[in-house]
């Protein structure tokens, strides 16, 4: 096991496309680091550079205390799990698992022992004599994991290993991955575009965009304290709601007003976000997580001091345990480049139909007891302690420690 350190790593492809730009990242020994971002953000490239499958155009990567820039993959002592498993189709499961060990000229008995251990751990014992073609997707995935485990490498690299599985299997494999990491404690770098995977798996999550590092932090911190509009919009599902708002202070205290609503801003927010008071009287971008809403009826009592806004539900998505209420507010949608980038996950050009005109479509996640139906009016309460404020120009979160002085 070892730490992995990337310092000022660049990747420039032929034609001058810069896929990774000055990436600095320290992955601690035994840590589970998730690289997340929309398609084309450079996360896979970064992983492949750590693996040695791509040349490093600039900067330095070290695994343990060795600089590995010019080491071929075989000498880096890492194992990788690929998106489409990359099993050797002409070998049985057993041979697939043993291949890397045989190449290292390990004694037969030791190979057998390790293969059997891994097969037992992953529940593959009865499939050892089968070829990959005779396995289901989940089983192939486990073989791919096993091939990495038997090597007992310094680090695991995983390139979207769950994205070819169906939704249910993905959830259970996610749990298995978590257990596996707990048990083996091997440094792991995990690439995904799925922010749910990122949140659930990572000890820390690194958000990338267009080759630039946006924020590295624990999942909860990313969720609670996003550094900019992009991270705020990308992490969390449904995505954070944004609106242009005016921050004002009058006799009854500070408040933020948008689309005809006026939400009080508690004093604690100003102490939490140093520099926010400089924005009083100015325009900011307000962000509210869908989970910070609640139906005032369903929330009766527990919403003391929360602000209330009356809205009309346009669409409701009933998920059983909760309901996503989509409603329009009378404010133009925020067209900041960061929110657009976060919403457009990759190649899909237009995500939402432009049915709302120049109004913004917001989402609130309310308790299933609310029983709200489309077209109904309801009163939402908002936890005003969790309001997010962003600079209109730069899109940076106001008062985030990383942004102080920027």
């Amino acid at each position, binding site marked *: 096991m070892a730490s992995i350190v990337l310092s000022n790593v660049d990747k420039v492809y032929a034609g001058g496309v810069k896929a990774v730009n000055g990436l600095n990242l320290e992955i601690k020994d035994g840590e589970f680091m998730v690289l997340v971002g929309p398609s084309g953000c450079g996360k896979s490239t970064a992983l492949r550079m750590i*693996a*040695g*499958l791509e040349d490093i155009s600039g900067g330095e990567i070290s695994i343990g205390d060795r600089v590995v820039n010019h080491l*071929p*993959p*075989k000498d*880096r002592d*890492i*194992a*990788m799990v*690929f*998106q*489409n*498993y*990359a*099993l*050797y*189709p*002409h070998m049985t499961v057993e041979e697939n698992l043993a*291949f*890397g060990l045989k*190449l*290292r000229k390990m004694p037969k008995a030791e190979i057998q022992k390790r293969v059997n251990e891994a097969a037992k751990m992953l529940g593959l014992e009865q499939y050892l004599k089968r070829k990959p073609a005779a396995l289901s997707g989940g089983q192939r995935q486990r073989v791919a994991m096993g*091939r990495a485990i038997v*090597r007992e490498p310094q680090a695991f690299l995983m390139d979207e290993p769950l994205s070819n599985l169906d939704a249910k299997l993905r959830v259970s494999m996610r749990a298995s991955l978590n257990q596996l990491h707990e048990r083996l404690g091997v440094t792991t770098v995990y690439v995904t575009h799925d922010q749910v995977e990122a949140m659930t798996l990572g000890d820390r999550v690194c958000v990338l965009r267009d080759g630039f590092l946006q924020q590295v932090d624990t999942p909860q911190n990313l969720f609670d304290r996003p550094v900019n509009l992009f991270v705020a919009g990308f992490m969390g599902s449904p995505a954070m709601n944004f609106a242009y708002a005016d921050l004002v202070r009058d006799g009854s205290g500070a408040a933020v007003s948008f689309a005809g609503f006026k939400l009080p801003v508690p004093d604690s927010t100003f102490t939490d976000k140093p520099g926010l008071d400089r924005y009083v009287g100015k325009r900011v971008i307000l962000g509210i997580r869908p989970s910070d809403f609640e139906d005032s009826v369903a929330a009766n009592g527990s919403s003391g001091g929360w602000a209330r806004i009356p809205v009309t539900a346009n669409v409701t998505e009933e998920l059983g345990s909760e309901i996503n209420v989509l409603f329009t507010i009378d404010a133009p949608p925020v067209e900041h480049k960061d929110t657009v980038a976060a919403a457009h996950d990759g190649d899909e050009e237009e995500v939402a139909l432009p049915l709302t005109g120049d109004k913004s479509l917001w989402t609130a996640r309310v308790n299933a007891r609310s029983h709200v139906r489309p077209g109904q009016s309801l009163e939402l309460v908002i936890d005003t302690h969790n309001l997010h404020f962003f600079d209109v120009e730069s899109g940076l979160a106001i008062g985030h420690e990383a942004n102080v002085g920027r």
Partner: protein
Amino acid sequence: MSSTAPAPGGTIAAGSADIVETAKAPRQLGPSPKMAIGFLAPALILLVAWVIYPIVYSIWRSLFGSNDSDFVGLSNYGAIFTDSSTLTTIRNNIIWVVVAPLVVTTLGLIFAVMTERIRWATAFKLILFMPMAVSLLAAGVVFRLVYEQDPDKGVANAIITTVHDAFASSAGFPGARPRENDQAPAALQGGAVVTKGATTLVPLVGINPQTLASAAQAGQPPADGGTVWLDVVRGGGGAVNQIDPQEKALAGLTVEALSGGKVVATATTADDGTYHFPGLTKGSYSVRLPADNFKAPFGGLTWLGPTLITPAIIGAYIWVWAGFAMVLISAGLAGIPRDALEAARIDGATEWQVFRRITVPLLSPVLLVVFVTMIINVLKVFDLVFIIAPGSVQPQANVIALEMWRVSFGGGGNQGLGSALAIFLLILVLPFMFFNIRRFRRDEG
């Protein structure tokens, strides 16, 4: 193929059956068998006329002698295995089948893998594939020239002699010799020129003075050595065995001093033909010019001679077909999952191990198809042998297909034996055809 005549009603789902009934369509989808036969008939007639009938007639004809009323039974087949010239053709065919498909497939694989990682790969592939666009007859003519004996005409020998001369110098004067009379101071002894008695002058003849036009004039013999020169004056004149002003030196020859049959000193003639033995003590020596000085220059290999003719023609065949194999194999290579190769690299494989243990096994279906196709192709080889082998070595280069033609139409006049050879060839090819067809069918299934 099987979709041309679907089983009547068999595959219609239950839900769609009543739709068919309400539309009052015929119970069977697709055209009627009668119509199918109508469409197939032209192809069938042509197939029978041009494939089935000739095969059957060849079998029938092979049972007769050169005269088609002269029934001989199976003795034509017996002749194939007893006649020494047909046995040579069979031996040659075996050499072909063993060597050519293997080399073609291996070269194709190497080219395909190499072109994966170079720039201008398409141009390279195009050039390698080009011989396929040339008719085999034209390729034969080209290689007839390539294998020409004279290095000035045949590129194969030009290359070989150039390489040979780069390592073994061929400086010397082939044909140079002493005069053959008693007055001559030197005489031939087993290819070498040895002086008689105590002389250091070695006059030689046998070279056209014109070839030495640029050589220096022969110099007077030094005290510790002598002179080797061409003792001929152009246009006549000059004294025999003496160095005359117009006479040219022979430079670069090895000269040995002999004492009692043993070499005691060695020297090389300078530009003016003189040589020195500086360290030699006074005494009586004879001077020898070893035979190496007079060897004929290396003229390359006799490609079109009886020993090398089959390898030479196989070389031409490989030139034609390696590009074809490469294109097929590169197509197969494109179908190999990149991830598996990368996974192997991360698993600790060197590039060679990746190639040996991942690429080749995954390519094996394609390699097998190329290999078997080549075997079929090689068994039938005819035109290259016919064109490249000169008439005099044709018996040594002969293959079954050529022998078949030769016996039937090319002067043999025995179409019974020719038919027997044709059937023999067909029997050799059939197993490989079946193999390939079964493979294709499995791939489709």
